[in-house]
């Protein structure tokens, strides 16, 4: 097996402001750079029926200016200071983050606090961001070959509305939104007590704490949002669907399975089982399909990690005139092989080394540290999990992988989406 490996723990300090804002500091002076991440506990999972797409619409609103930062200035401030920034939305959360020279920590905190305190939720901003989201939907989903398949398969896998609907949401719902709806959404979900602030990199902890207090301390807290139910039955909602994709140049397919939540031992086992199937040039399916048979142009797979029921996918774009069902048989045969015989000793060694390698590399960048710490703080209430997760993964046994692959993947309880090109060609 792999050699023993001890990774020194990250230095973490966790505390809360009086208004409920959870703060995690991770000091690391190796490079004079600082990363700030603000994670709000709101994602598409929080959206009600008839109001989908709100969480993501909000991510756009957050760049439209606040009391002291004009529209589009956020970006200019960061850029002129030599930094980088962005924001993203998932089913689980909405995050905002920037990396800057260490001396610019006050700027990052000023910018983040100004929009948490005083976002400009106006009719004009709402109208033009609605249009921007529609544009983004056309660009990233409707006008991309295979752009809609992940949203479609989530509808096939999940039965609970909180899980099954897309993050981009419905354009009709966005049209129905009033400024009052949006102001209310901001009040509830963008309150300091519904967020985690992480600072990672080079800083004096006392200075950082003082700055956090100065900028965030007097933002009022709000009633905690009602908790949501993301429970799911074991069966997938729908086994088979055919999708005519007007832009797809080739047929393709995507298989998805419903699996237990993140950080459960079965989720870990399936994450590792999935890597053996599709991760890297030496993976089982790459060697069988891309190399061996040369039947596939592109092969991909990944796990979608959620606080509730999660999912795992394998997909392929076959070469022209290749038999799709035969390729799926190869995939299911490899799954059955892992379900029966489990991973080989060589494969376990590969997994262990890759896990250690990934875990060490993640620690290099202040931004990736800040993001991971914020996730553990927000989802699990425990940022120190960043120091123990590697151990949890390394402790997964070959038999746990075999058992979980057998129980969750080696089954008819899966969703198959067949993509057929329906274009001009």
């Amino acid at each position, binding site marked *: 097996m792999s050699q023993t490996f001890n*990774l020194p723990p990250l230095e973490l300090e966790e505390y809360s402001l009086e208004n409920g804002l959870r703060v995690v500091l991770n000091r690391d002076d*190796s*490079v*004079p*750079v600082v990363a700030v991440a603000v994670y709000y506990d709101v994602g598409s999972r929080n959206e009600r029926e008839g109001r989908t797409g709100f969480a993501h619409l909000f991510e756009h609103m957050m760049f*439209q200016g606040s*009391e*002291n930062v004009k529209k*589009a200035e956020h970006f*200019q*401030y960061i*850029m*002129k*200071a*030599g*930094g*980088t920034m962005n924001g993203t939305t998932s089913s689980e959360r909405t995050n905002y983050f920037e*990396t*800057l*020279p*260490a*001396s*610019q*920590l006050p*700027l990052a905190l*000023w910018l983040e606090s*100004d929009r948490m305190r005083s976002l400009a939720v106006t009719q004009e901003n709402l109208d*033009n*961001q609605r*249009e*921007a989201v529609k*544009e983004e939907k*056309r*660009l990233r989903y*409707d006008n*991309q070959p295979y752009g809609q398949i992940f949203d479609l398969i989530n509808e096939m896998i999940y039965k609970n509305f909180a899980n099954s609907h897309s993050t981009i949401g419905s354009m009709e719902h966005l049209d129905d939104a009033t400024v009052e709806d949006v102001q209310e959404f901001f009040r509830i979900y963008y309150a300091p007590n519904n967020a985690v602030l992480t600072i990672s990199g080079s800083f004096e902890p006392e*200075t950082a704490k*003082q700055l956090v*207090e100065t*900028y965030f301390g007097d933002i009022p807290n709000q009633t905690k949002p009602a908790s949501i139910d993301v429970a799911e039955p074991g069966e997938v909602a729908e086994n088979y669907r055919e999708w005519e994709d*007007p*832009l797809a140049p080739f047929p393709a397919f995507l298989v998805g399975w419903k699996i237990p939540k993140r950080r459960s031992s079965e989720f870990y086992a399936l994450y590792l089982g999935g890597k053996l199937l599709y991760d890297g040039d*030496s993976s089982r399916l790459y*060697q069988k399909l891309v*190399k061996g048979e*040369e039947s596939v142009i592109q092969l991909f797979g990944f796990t979608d990690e959620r606080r509730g029921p999660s999912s795992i996918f394998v997909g392929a774009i076959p070469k022209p005139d290749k038999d799709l069902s035969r390729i799926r048989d190869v995939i299911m045969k490899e799954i059955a092989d892992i379900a029966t015989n489990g991973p080989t000793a*060589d494969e376990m060694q*590969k997994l*262990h*080394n*890759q896990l*250690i*390698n*990934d875990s*060490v*590399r993640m620690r*290099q*960048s202040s931004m990736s540290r800040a993001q991971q710490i914020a996730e553990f703080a927000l989802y699990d209430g425990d940022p120190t999990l960043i120091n123990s997760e590697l151990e949890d993964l390394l402790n997964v046994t070959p038999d746990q992988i075999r058992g979980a692959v057998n129980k969750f993947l080696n089954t008819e309880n899966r969703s198959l989406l067949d993509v057929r090109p*329906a*274009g001009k060609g």
Partner: protein
Amino acid sequence: MTQPVRNTAPSPLPPMPFNIAQAKTVTLENGLKIVMFADKRLPLVSYRLAFLAGDANEPTDKIGVTSAVAAMMTEGTDNYSSRELAEKIERLGAAVSAATTEDFFIVAGSSLSMYASDVLSLIAEVIFRPTFPEDELDLYKRNAIENLKFQRSQPNFLAGEQVAKAVYGEHPYSIVSPSPSDIENLNRESLRDFHQKLFIPNNAILVVVGDIEENEFLDQARDLFGGWNRGLTPSVKFSEPPRREKRETIIVDRPGSAQANIVLANIAFSRNNPDFFAATVMNQILGAGASSRVFMNLREEKGYTYGAYTRLDPKRLAGDFEATTEVRTAVTGDSLREFFYELNRIRDEKASDDELADAKNFLTGVFPIRAETQEGLTNLIVNQQLYGLPSDYLQTYRDNIEKITADDVVRVANKYVQPDDITIVIVGDAGEILPQVREYADSIRIIDTEGHPLDMASFEQQADEPSVDASGTWELSLDFQGQKVPVSLELQHDDGKLTGKIETVIGTGVIENGSIRGKKLTAAAITEIQGQSVEFSISGTIDADSIEGTLSAPIIPDSLAFEGKRVS
């Protein structure tokens, strides 16, 4: 605690020093230079074995062989098959790969430091014993030819090809890619032969960055590479890039293009030129970023485009300065006017204190962010070594940027930005573009996408035809993924000036600068989305009361066809 002052951005804290240690260098008897840099932040190691010869060193009958060798190195050796290599590398959680540039051939490896010696052995394996298996080479050739076809469909590629020819003339930097027949001609023998000539220790540098024991590493490096025989270093005798003395224009005709891809380029300087720092600051002010002058002018003020930039591309032996943008065809001439305004302004006027400070802050600010990861740090060190930059280059980079004054910026702008002798390359609909570029060009050539010259006269006629009257209300039917979407177009056409509006399901767009040439209409409709103007380009042909054409936007991958009638 004092009441926070929130209405202005806070001042930065005192700057923190960023100290990079110096690398250690050892040269083996066979000439292999070894550069060691201790990075003990985390238990990782990164290697680069780089040869100071790249695509530019290829003989003209073997174009493409360098990148083929790079791709094939990990596809089989004397001891391992392609699959066994993949398994050996990934079982360590490591990565080993090879890539080329015009100047260099670089084999890269990285892993946890506990596998440092295994990875170095694997690098030696692929360097000394590649077999270039026939079946793997076949697969590579098929994929490379497919990829080339795709590239030729991309306007940026076509523009880059012409820019390289114009700037570098007979110098090998003028070749941006092998042709399909170059790739067809590749065979195992040419790869083997090239491998034997290129891979010599006296033209190579081995860089290691990471958490390693220097003596152990050196012992292993001597063991693996010490017995490697010297060879003849490739002769470096290239033609000088030509000097231009007028503004030449090359239009690559791509009929039906909704956009014009514009590149202005002139010869500038090589990477080790001491003007590098002043020129980098100058370029940051002028056009490197989204808060630089050309972006603020062409995109933010004029709304011609999604992006407009300038860049410096200094290579080992020479380099160029470029200004680039993609605009809707109707504003090609206007974009050239604004580009020349900015290229002259940076030469004629001193930059303001704020502009100079913003540019320097950006450059000194991003520098440590680039060195956060070991891969980033390694790339900085490798570049310093390969381009032969001073040994304290990384340590003094930020000071050297800080030293630059507004006078320095004017001086290097006058030296390296040459608006009067710059070459203009435009990929797009030549008939639409030609009349717009005349006043900016001393000479004009039109070629097709394969580079063959086209007859200018046929484009002149098109341009001189009398224009039809486009005024009125037009009802169009737009083909959106097989669905017919109604669009209404209202046009006023006075004195060759075309204005109006377009109504679609997603809103109304205003047309301000449309044009009619003969029967051909080009116009752009601007709508405000997300605080940014989004532009739809409309191009069509009018025949009495019928119109047909296409609608496109930077965000739509393929333009959408429409047809319609004048209803009033």
